[in-house]
């Protein structure tokens, strides 16, 4: 594995050093694309924390929107710094996650049903944002009130490099959380095997608690991603940050990359964003919708021909051996 570690080190060094590489006029654009990739990879990774345990949420837009709108509204109307706003948003998101996850786990809502419940939650958040148009600007969206100059309090910076490093740190944080969850899951699995049969009854309680915990973790990280994105773009909109559209996009990117691998969500997100950018550049605004059309078509093709995702398939191919999935979906 040392070769792998060296590879990772080189990649990280390259990412850290990237802002110092001369890129000419493309600088702003390249940073813009990279920041998007980091933030959405982080969000995709957050989604996959649940997804790989069989909790397939089709409503992560709810958490994204709740995070982004809470922070933005608190700043715009009360001048509360996004740092504290984010704290409020995280608490609210965690509460929403518990409200959704507890009954789902308690009443054994799984599979299609879980997907549809979360989809409904996502739609409810989107519709509430639109309904409260006096505050939120409805479907027209809301601009984050400019602070006038670079400000750490307002988390607004003219230089994209600041956001670039912040997004890079966020992304790395996401990978670290993933790694930790992976390790603690492996330990729990070992414990479960070690315990004798009579302890099986207590495993049920364990599963409930685990499901709620992983949902809250996933939701909170997603909200943080939403806040980061809103601060960067300085504009929030119910269609880009809540509802079924963005929720599906997150899921697509992750499934495309492979949700069972550490770098799966990143690979999937990077590819979808790169693809969208390339198609946008190629077709421009002369053919509105063409880029998305090809995007949709490719998604279908990928799902049919690469069911375990691009990264997952490549990795399996390299290992030459079908690898059993690291964790079976929690269905109990």
């Amino acid at each position, binding site marked *: 594995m040392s070769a792998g570690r060296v590879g990772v080190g080189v990649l990280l060094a390259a990412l850290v050093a990237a802002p110092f590489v001369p890129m000419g006029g493309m600088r702003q654009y390249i940073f813009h694309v990279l920041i998007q990739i980091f933030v959405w990879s982080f969000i995709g990774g957050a989604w996959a924390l649940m997804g790989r345990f069989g909790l397939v949420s089709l409503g992560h837009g709810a958490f994204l929107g709740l995070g982004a709108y809470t922070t933005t509204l608190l700043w715009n109307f009360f001048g509360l710094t996004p740092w504290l706003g984010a704290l409020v948003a995280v608490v609210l998101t965690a509460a929403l996650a518990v409200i959704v996850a507890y009954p789902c786990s308690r009443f054994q809502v799984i599979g299609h049903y879980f997907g549809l419940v979360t989809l409904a939650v996502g739609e409810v958040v989107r519709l509430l944002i639109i309904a409260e148009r006096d505050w939120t600007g409805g479907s027209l969206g809301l601009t984050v009130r400019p602070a006038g100059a670079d400000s750490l309090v307002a988390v607004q910076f003219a230089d994209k490099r600041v956001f670039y490093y912040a997004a890079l740190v966020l992304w790395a944080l996401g990978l670290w959380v993933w790694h930790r969850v992976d390790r603690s899951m492996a330990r729990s699995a070992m414990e479960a095997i070690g315990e004798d049969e009579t302890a099986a009854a207590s495993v049920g309680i364990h599963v409930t608690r685990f499901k709620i915990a992983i949902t809250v973790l996933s939701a909170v990280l997603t909200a943080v991603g939403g806040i980061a994105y809103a601060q960067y773009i300085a504009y929030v909109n119910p269609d880009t940050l809540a509802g079924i559209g963005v929720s599906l996009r997150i899921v697509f990117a992750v499934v495309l990359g492979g949700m069972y691998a550490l770098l799966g969500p990143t690979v999937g997100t990077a590819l979808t964003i790169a693809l969208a950018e390339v198609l946008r550049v190629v077709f421009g605004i002369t053919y509105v919708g063409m*880029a*998305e059309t090809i995007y*949709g078509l490719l998604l279908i093709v990928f799902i049919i021909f690469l069911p375990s995702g691009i990264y997952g398939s490549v990795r399996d191919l390299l290992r030459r051996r079908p690898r059993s999935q690291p964790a079976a979906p929690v269905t109990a």
Partner: protein
Amino acid sequence: MIDPIFLAEAAVNGLLLGGVLALLALGLNLIFGVIDIVWIAYVDLVMICMYAVYFLVQVYGWPIWIGSLASVGLGALLGIAVHVLIISPILGSAPVNQLLATGGLLFFLQSFATFLWTTDHRSVRLTLPTLEYGGMFLSFARLVAFAVALLVMLGLFLFLRHTYIGTAIRAVSQDREAMALMGANPRTVYVVTSAVGGALAGVAAALLIIQYSVHPFFGAAFGPLTFMICVLGGLGNMIGAFVAAFIMSEIISIGGVVWSTEMGYVIAFVIFIIMIFVRPGGLFARRA
């Protein structure tokens, strides 16, 4: 205080909308019951058929009823195409992938429609009267749509009850392996089911285009609602879906008058979420 007349009007409109929603939910539920896959893009097929009716009637000047028949045929063809091209290669895949493949279709249809026809709203203009009854104003188009929806559902019921293939469709939804032992090729049953489901989408399209204008994101407005009606009624349960459609449409219609359109939907969705927890098998599930 809201004028009771408005409430009554909303209730009647809810009932009329419920007819078309029930038709959509039955189509989706039929496919789910048999093939065990939720077509996320189902209402987007309706959207394509609505465009077809619009162009045939409004641009090429066909009579509305021929345009509607064409829409039914197109729906059936689309249903078959979706099954053969997308569903059948992934029948054995993980449920997530199945859900996402039809989700990819949703993206594709929405964007392709945007590409071909832009985001303009288009509607079929029929000169149909508005009826007045006891101070309520009711659109004749909605009444017609409601009546046709009920008739088509009756036809569907008879088809499922009294034909060999219809009974086989019901049998497959209960035990697909056993039906293969009876000599039914599952592939044939699936294709027929998809065609029937698609044809129902075509009917719904013809009924919707005389009430609403069509745009590429039409599916986003009715799609989530249709899934929720199916789940509320019990996935695969046709009678449940029928009743659930009217409950949801009344909530949306009355809620829309009392508060706002969005709040009507919010209430409907929240009730849906609570119902899943309380009665996960649908309104009419027998307690185990």
